[in-house]
């Protein structure tokens, strides 16, 4: 299965899951997991940055249209799509990751680095999204709780996704 095809499947699947399952989960108003941004996280290493930006923005835009939150997800997704290459460059070993046609995963990056990578980008996305959504700086503690809990739950869902789909060990060529 080619990487392109895999990414398209993932795109459709994640947006479907996000819109029809996760958006209906509202735990106390504090937890709003946004698993869909995993598809930005899992785009292949070699994806050009402009394409990353475009795909990220388009993803956010689609989610926005489903959730009636014009611009909010698009802004957050564009931000993580822009920051993603910098984070990867920071985490990459000397000479870069060996197979740039593949996606970031515990198998290709190492579990610790991947957790850091996913955690950072999810946190950034959630900070931007919830800040824009709540937009009430008198309610900062509420906003902080919302960001923290949602980030943790999103990461938990990424972990579940990983149990289902990530490969157990690096594939040898």
């Amino acid at each position: 299965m080619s990487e392109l095809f895999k990414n398209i499947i993932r795109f459709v699947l994640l947006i479907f899951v996000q819109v029809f399952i996760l958006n209906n989960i509202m735990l106390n108003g504090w937890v709003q997991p946004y698993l869909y941004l995993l598809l930005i996280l899992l785009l292949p290493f070699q994806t050009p940055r402009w394409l990353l930006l475009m795909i990220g923005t388009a993803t956010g835009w689609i989610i926005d249209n489903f959730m009636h939150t014009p611009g909010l997800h698009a802004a957050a997704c564009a931000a993580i799509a822009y920051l993603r290459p910098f984070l990867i460059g920071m985490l990459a070993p000397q000479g870069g990751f060996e197979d740039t046609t593949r996606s970031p995963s515990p198998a290709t990056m190492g579990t610790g680095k991947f957790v850091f990578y996913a955690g950072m980008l999810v946190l950034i996305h959630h900070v931007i999204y919830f800040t824009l959504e709540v937009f009430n700086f008198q309610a900062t503690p509420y906003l902080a709780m919302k960001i923290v809990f949602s980030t943790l739950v999103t990461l938990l869902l990424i972990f579940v996704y990983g149990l289902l789909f990530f490969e157990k060990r690096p594939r040898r060529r």
Partner: protein
Amino acid sequence: MRNLILFIRRYFNLLLFIAIEAICLNRVFSQNPFQQAWFLQFSEEWMGRLYQHYADVMQYFHLKQVNESLLAENARLRNQLLQDFSFPDTSRQLIRDTAHHRQYAYLPAEVVNNSIVHASNYITIHRGKLEGVHAHMGVVSSQGVAGVVVRASDHYALVMSLLHKDFRLSVRLKRTGDIGYVRWDGEDPTTALFSDIPRSVALYKNDTVVTSGFSVMFPPGIVVGYVEKVAHQPASNFQVARIRLATPFSRLRYVYVIENLQAPEQLQVESNVVSP
């Protein structure tokens, strides 16, 4: 141009990111009612503050100008303060009458200093030589005789009050025409002594005492006071009466200085008689 293209190529992703974020945020703030309201309020508030700071800074550059205009205004207002002005009374209103020969002119003046508690009391009036006041002019209030000018400067004159131990005034009993003189005994600023009235004259309470017109200072008939109490002096052919002074010296505010237009002539005639 080439550099511009290079710049765009080099920072293409950043520029693209900024453009996308701008579009997204524009969408956020234009299509979400809550965020839109917040943004409008925010921008209004901060634009207001910005303009406020701008004005605060700019006003420093105008401080000198503002100070100068304030100084000018202060000076102008100070110059309008009434207390800084001196108003010697200069009014002089005479009615020309060809059928009669005017002898006396009244010059109004404000009392600026006055005493009643000493043995020798003086009144200072705000009208001096330049306004036609000189020594030996009579001074009356609207009720009666007040004193005589003893000295005049350019804008002020010192008036010997009737309440002065050396003051002597030739008077006449209005009802009978008998003459006498009035002096102050230094006791009560509301009363004085009316002396040298022949014993033959019957004095009654409230008889009016007026000026005789013998001196050049006062015209005849000006009220001096009213008889209060008659004191008979058994060993004398004259009697003394205490009179209630017509002028309220304790609350004297305005007086009239009497100018005798024919005083020089009268004095000259009299001096010719006396001098040889």
